């Protein structure tokens, strides 16, 4: 069982923290972080297992690198990054940029260019498998990444290599630079059928409900790679940011910031 109440409270804090940081920089990917907030919280707090020394046993790769704000605030929450790291975000003396860099504590791979994270995660999961290491690799993909041929190349290999230790989450917010995917690329759908055809076990949940994310992941077929389609809303939690492409990259003005902060509340359904 997971503590849903605690998760909802954490997610309130993360969204507020990201809005706070947005006031120090001209641009950041807040909306893409808000759609993945509950998914990434669930991975870090409920899914990643600990070893005897309380060290993370499993690996997390943020393949949708532009969503890394949520990863940064969680890594700060867990004491892996510092408050100073967040204050210096995108500043000359800082070490955090708009996309995660390998080498920064808690960052397992450099992402940001879409369509890279899955193949890298497959390499990690396969190395663990042949070394008999009991470790899961959790990956968050954007739906835009499912338009990259490299993602499908990698999916085919994940199935061929029978990577039951590879657990992927699709942040399906259905929104990209030119508008809603349903309108711009209708043949992107159906998603589930395509994932199944590539040999993955899959399911579909509300991506803002940690219980659903957690329960589905536990029930997965552990002999196959897993890809959970998490239906989300880009900019979730701030009404004027939700599903508006303009908020992909811009920071709110001080007035917009105040309004946004006032709107942040528990999300569970």
């Amino acid at each position: 069982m997971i503590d849903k109440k605690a998760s909802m409270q954490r997610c309130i804090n993360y969204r507020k923290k990201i809005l706070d940081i947005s006031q120090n920089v001209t641009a950041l990917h807040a909306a893409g972080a808000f759609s993945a907030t509950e998914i990434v919280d669930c991975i870090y707090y409920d899914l990643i297992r600990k070893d005897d020394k309380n060290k993370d046993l499993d690996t997390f790769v943020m393949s949708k690198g532009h969503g890394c704000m949520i990863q940064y605030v969680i890594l700060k929450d867990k004491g892996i990054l510092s408050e100073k790291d967040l204050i210096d975000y995108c500043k000359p003396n800082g070490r955090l940029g708009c996309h995660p860099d390998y080498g920064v504590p808690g960052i397992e791979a450099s992402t940001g260019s879409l369509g890279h994270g899955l193949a890298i995660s497959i390499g990690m999961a396969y190395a663990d498998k042949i070394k008999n290491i009991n470790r899961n690799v959790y990956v968050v993909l954007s739906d835009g990444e499912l338009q990259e041929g490299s993602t499908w190349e990698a999916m085919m290999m994940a199935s061929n290599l029978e990577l039951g230790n590879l657990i992927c989450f699709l942040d399906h917010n259905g929104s990209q630079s030119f508008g809603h995917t349903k309108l711009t690329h209708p043949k992107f759908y159906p998603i589930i059928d395509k994932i199944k055809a590539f040999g993955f076990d899959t399911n579909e949940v509300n991506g803002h409900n940690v219980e659903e994310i957690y329960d589905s992941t536990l029930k997965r077929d552990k002999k196959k790679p897993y890809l959970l389609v998490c239906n989300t809303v880009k900019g979730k939690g701030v009404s004027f940011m939700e599903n508006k492409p303009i908020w992909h990259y811009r920071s709110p003005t001080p007035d917009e910031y105040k309004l946004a902060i006032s709107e942040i509340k528990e999300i569970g359904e």
Partner: protein
Amino acid sequence: MRNKFADAVYEIGSKDKRICALVADISPAGSMLKFRENYPERFINTGVAEQSMIGIAAGLALRGMRPVCYTIATFSLYRPFEFIRVDLCYQNLPVTIIGMGAGVIYSTLGGTHHSMEDIAIASSLPNMTVLAPCDPIEMRNATEWCLTKSNGPVYMRLGKAGEPNLSENANEPFDIGKVRNLIKGEKIALLSYGITLNICFKVREILKNKGLSPSIYSCHTLKPFDEIRISQILKSYDKIIIIEEHVPEGGLSTRIKNCAWKYKSNVKIHTFTLKDQFIHFYGNHEELLEKHGISVSRIIKKINE
């Protein structure tokens, strides 16, 4: 060189469990049968999917493995270029990319299978080491270094089959990062890398009959580039002849000319490179090189001018 390369990976991989081989439906002759049969879990064929070959190799390297990725040069370097740049070079991971049959070796397969710009492209990437051994002996040494000692990504250009051993009686040992003198001579220096060093030996044989004794250098490491040694070579000879199976820009010729400018050398430099052209011509390797302007007779003619 393909068979010898497969043997090298097998032998080195037998002693080091970190070594794994990834291929994209093309593999060295015999399909690396020995390695595959003995270490099936360390052999991955991604199918005709070069981007995921590089990405998976990066993930393996992030877990402490030392992968080697193998296919025809144009598919190992050009097709997944951005994966090499981001996954391997940006993260500085010890993954070796083999560019097999580089240059215009696959003469009759046409332009889609030629890689005439690989040295320039690979060398332009930060953190990348670029190697082009001239024969199976240099290749064995280079492979050993790539698989066990390199600290970052390597692009290694290889020939195809039937390359003669040129470095058996070399004047100097093989050292990564160093220009290597194979034959000591005077007045004329012949410099090349990879399998076109064979041409240098043919040129030298003809010149010997005329009482000339040129030196031959193997520039097997294109990056990092041994500028110091090149600056000494520029000072020590009357004529510098560079032969490379590569477009004029961004290869050995460009680099040596840069050195000449930097070290204020006035020595005569003659370059024989591929043309900056896609040549639609079907003949054997030697005939296609001739079309590009690289042949023993042209080089001899230039030296005699």
